[in-house]
């Protein structure tokens, strides 16, 4: 049961092979037995899960079940879930029980999904290793001395360790794709605005996007069918028809034009990772795709631009955590200012404080033009580079990360070297483009991800491309030793 995909579990539910309650109980048992090794969950919602499973079974009995009814998933702990703690892996929200469901969470509820729990993450999604979590790091199931990536590291670890068949994540600079790559699973960051952000605790509003993390592209398609769509509660949500992402999965790739950006294959990239990515590209050539080298000349600039825009927006987005209406308030504040400073100083972890400070500085009068405005200009240049390339090719393929998973603690004291690991993922968020990470091999026993990038709203194409790859290869079926 635990090595089944969502699609297979759905078939089992429909055929009556097992009930949602049986399924849910089995997964809950497994989480209880195994998660101490991975720390992938912050909260397990057993009661809610069993109630939802019961309702799903009733729906099957009544003949009202839909494609997602009864399927268990986990949500990253920055999505607001009514009546359930939504901590963002922060001391600040350790006591925060959300009074409402975010739009994406509500859509899964409506679709009859079962929520197993809330997954671990970097605090407020700031980080690429899950080490900034207030609840301690999640661990990589392929090597528990290594990081699962971040910020959706708990979701990545939970899916890889078969503690959830699939999970939701959010991606502001690579936070779905990078942990998917490092944990050997499939993840999709949709186009900015494709999935409503209402109810996602904001990190950087103009970069944040919610997406699925699962074993296969097909499962991602099933999830995106539920998640995607216009939401009147989110001004940045796009009012555009949502296709059925499962129906185009099997389209042939003959004639597919693939671009390989030369700036992604440089000294920064581990040669063994490069090799795996090139092997994957060769698979597509076998399927009739053509490959050409393309150029994204401002790739390096995505790091400085991102590390201005994201902290600037975050510094403002996180101002609401002030100890007044919810969340952590320090003991015995001596006055208002003391309440603000200590509640925030004690409630936020180091990386969050660091980014708030960078963002605050960048927005100060006198620096705005040199930093924030400049970064937004560079952002447009980066977007133009992509647009030009995507006129010539259908998809861009690249590594998701320069290296496989690094060791816990390895980059802890050097934020800059941690930031450099995001080089291949950041620019998509800046440009608002969709991207996937698909497992494409192992390097020293650790998974490596192939990144597939498409034009705005090309999710169906990306899923089609990834699915065809997964029909031809079995990297996505590999499991860590002992699982």
């Amino acid at each position, binding site marked *: 049961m635990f090595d089944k995909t969502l699609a297979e579990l759905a078939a089992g539910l429909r055929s009556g092979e097992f009930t949602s309650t049986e399924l849910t109980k089995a997964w809950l048992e497994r989480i209880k037995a195994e998660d101490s090794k991975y720390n992938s969950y912050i909260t397990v919602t057993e009661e809610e899960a069993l109630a939802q499973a019961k309702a799903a079974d009733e729906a099957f009995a009544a003949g009202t079940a839909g494609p997602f009814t009864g399927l268990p998933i986990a949500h990253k702990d920055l999505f607001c879930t009514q009546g359930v703690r939504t901590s963002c892996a922060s001391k600040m929200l350790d006591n925060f029980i959300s009074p409402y469901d975010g739009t994406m969470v509500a859509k899964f509820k409506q679709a009859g999904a079962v929520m197993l729990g809330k997954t671990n993450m970097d605090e407020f999604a700031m980080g690429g290793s899950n080490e900034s979590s207030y609840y301690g790091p999640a661990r990589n199931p392929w090597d528990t001395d290594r990081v699962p990536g971040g910020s959706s590291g708990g979701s990545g670890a939970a899916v890889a360790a078969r503690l959830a068949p699939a999970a939701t994540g959010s991606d502001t600079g690579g936070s779905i794709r990078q942990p998917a790559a490092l944990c050997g699973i499939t993840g999709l960051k949709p186009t900015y605005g494709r999935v409503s952000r209402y109810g996602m605790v904001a990190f950087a509003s103009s970069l944040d996007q919610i997406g699925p993390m699962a074993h296969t592209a097909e499962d991602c398609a099933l999830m995106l069918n539920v998640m995607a769509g216009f939401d009147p509660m989110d001004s940045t949500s796009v009012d555009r028809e949502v296709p059925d992402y499962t129906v185009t999965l099997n389209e042939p790739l003959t004639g597919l034009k693939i671009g390989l950006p030369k700036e992604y294959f440089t000294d920064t990239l581990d040669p063994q990772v490069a090799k795996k990515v090139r092997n994957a590209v060769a698979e597509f050539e076998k399927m009739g795709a053509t490959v050409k080298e393309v150029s994204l000349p401002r790739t390096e600039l995505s790091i*400085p631009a991102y590390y201005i825009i994201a902290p600037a927006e975050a*510094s403002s987005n996180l101002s609401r955590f002030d100890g007044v209406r919810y969340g952590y308030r320090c003991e015995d504040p001596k006055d208002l200012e003391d309440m603000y400073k200590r509640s925030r*100083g004690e409630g936020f972890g180091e990386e969050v*404080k660091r980014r*708030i400070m*960078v963002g605050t500085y960048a927005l100060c009068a006198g620096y705005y033009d040199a930093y924030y405005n*400049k970064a*937004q200009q560079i952002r447009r240049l980066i977007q133009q580079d992509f647009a030009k390339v995507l006129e010539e090719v259908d998809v861009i393929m690249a590594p998701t990360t320069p290296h496989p998973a690094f060791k816990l603690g390895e980059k802890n004291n050097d934020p800059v070297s941690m930031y450099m690991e995001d080089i291949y993922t950041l620019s998509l968020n800046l440009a608002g483009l969709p991207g996937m990470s698909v497992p494409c091999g192992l390097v020293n026993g650790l998974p490596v991800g192939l990144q597939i990038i498409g034009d705005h709203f090309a999710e169906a194409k990306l899923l089609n491309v990834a699915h065809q790859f997964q029909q031809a290869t079995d990297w996505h079926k590999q499991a860590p030793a002992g699982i």
Partner: protein
Amino acid sequence: MSLDRSDVERIAHLARLQIDESDIPAYTENLSNILNLIDQMQQTDTSGVAPLANPLDAVQRLRADTVTETNQREALQKAAPAVEDGLFLVPKVIE
């Protein structure tokens, strides 16, 4: 670009973050390194380039002026650190 202690103190005050005295040197160094990384972009000529605030260059949608929210005070104040008579309590506000 390198920051000094007083910059860090000023930023921490603006952001209302209590920073331990002993952590200030580390913050100063880390923030300076980050700013150095960021300064790479200063070499790029961006004159005449319109800033991209929204990746889709979309425009604002409008909401009808009708009440959609009902009184949820009790539920919404459950998470509050201090409440009395329906008010959120904070240390005295001095004007």
